[in-house]
């Protein structure tokens, strides 16, 4: 039986791992390659690297990080951040990443999803969606630029459009929950999960093992992603998996 996946996310800036609370007040939490290997040994099912470097030099460093990680890691990993063209995808995938994740660039230029899927296959193309509930729209809307800019897309419709264009997976982040550690947004996750046929990774709000169980069982997410609770050793991938296993969730 296919297992549910636990995915640590590493925010990388200029070659170092950082994580912000609600995308502010960044703290340095270590060397990406070392952390990646550590998570692999802990039983992480996959890893996501999010490159938040603002400069060209920072992004060039990311390519080195990808290459070094690929040489050491025996599990799949995804790279997102700063990928705007098919050439960027080629650069990162050839450096050894298994998938690329696109967010703002996919909204600005939806054909990028199609180009990537045609060239590498859908399994390589993850579309990341940052969603926040809007009272005036009575639904979740898609945001860009770390949650600052609201788009005209409803999250459910954008997820469907992304899959139609060739996305092989949706990485769904709740901007309402991100950094809060109060649990994943179950309603949002369930809504997207029911709207598309590709796997959905839930992100934003993980604070403890129970939160993982809720999103994987009740909202039926295919995978759950978290960053800070792993980096600051508040809990471990191994501890969460042991908990899930005891609660009857199928994990590796």
């Amino acid at each position, binding site marked *: 039986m296919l297992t549910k996946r636990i995915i640590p996310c590493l925010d990388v800036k200029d070659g170092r791992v950082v994580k912000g609370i609600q995308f502010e007040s960044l703290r340095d939490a270590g060397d990406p390659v070392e952390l990646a290997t550590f998570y692999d040994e802990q039983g992480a099912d996959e890893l996501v690297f999010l490159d938040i470097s603002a400069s060209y030099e920072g992004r060039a460093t990311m390519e080195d990080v990808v290459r070094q990680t*690929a040489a050491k890691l025996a599990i*799949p990993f995804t790279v997102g951040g700063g990928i705007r063209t098919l050439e960027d995808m080629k650069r990162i995938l050839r450096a050894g990443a298994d998938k690329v994740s696109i967010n703002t660039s996919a909204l600005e230029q939806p054909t990028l999803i199609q180009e990537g899927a045609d060239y590498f296959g859908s*399994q390589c193309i993850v579309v990341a969606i940052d969603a926040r509930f809007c009272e005036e729209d009575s639904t979740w809307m898609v945001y860009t630029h770390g949650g600052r800019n609201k788009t005209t897309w409803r999250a459910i419709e954008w997820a469907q459009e992304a899959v139609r264009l060739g996305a092989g997976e949706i990485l769904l982040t709740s901007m309402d929950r991100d950094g809060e550690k109060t649990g994943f947004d179950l309603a949002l996750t369930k809504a997207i999960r029911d709207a598309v046929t590709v796997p959905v990774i839930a992100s934003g709000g993980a604070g403890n093992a129970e939160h993982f169980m809720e999103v994987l069982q009740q909202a039926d997410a295919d995978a759950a992603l978290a960053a800070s609770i792993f980096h600051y050793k508040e809990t471990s991938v191994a501890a969460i998996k042991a908990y899930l296993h005891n609660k009857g969730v199928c994990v590796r």
Partner: protein
Amino acid sequence: MKIGIIDYGMGNLFSVEQALKRLGINAVITANKEQLNSMDALILPGVGAFPDAMKRLQETGLASFIQSTKKPLLGICLGMQLLFEESDEVTTTEGLGIFSGRITKFTNAPRIPHMGWNDLQFAHMPNWLTTLQEERFVYFVHSFYAKDIKPEELMAFADYYDVQVPGIVAKNNFTGMQFHPEKSGQFGLFLLQQWLEGVKKC
């Protein structure tokens, strides 16, 4: 031991190369048939669409080379699917025909692709595999699978909704793995290492 990775312009050769490196093997990546012929064993990797892959194998003459080779050959993911008779992907396309059966899309699965870690169950042991580890999860990512295959050629499978997904197939010198052993953690490396041990004995 010399291992050749068949380079026909499809997919991520880097991760297979890296996995072999971890097992102490410096593989040669090439499309040159003479060079491939000087190897002890071959790996046919591949990510992408079946028709494109077959077209490239035919244009380069690698299709007939693979069909006639007596060397141990391991096909991974699309590389395994290419060893079958035919595929429905995009348009009906003839494969290399080493294994009986066809490559067809999941129809009833609510989630496509079949992506993630699944438990490998063994029906038979391939001739290169003598022992097994307790943990048998491997990483799959695919939307098509091998159907109507000969039971004696099916070594291991994984359950995905109503389908028994062939995970390892084997026949004579040919082995196919639908999952990615190079991405399947310690167990994946163990399977690769066992296959390499088998090559040594040939």
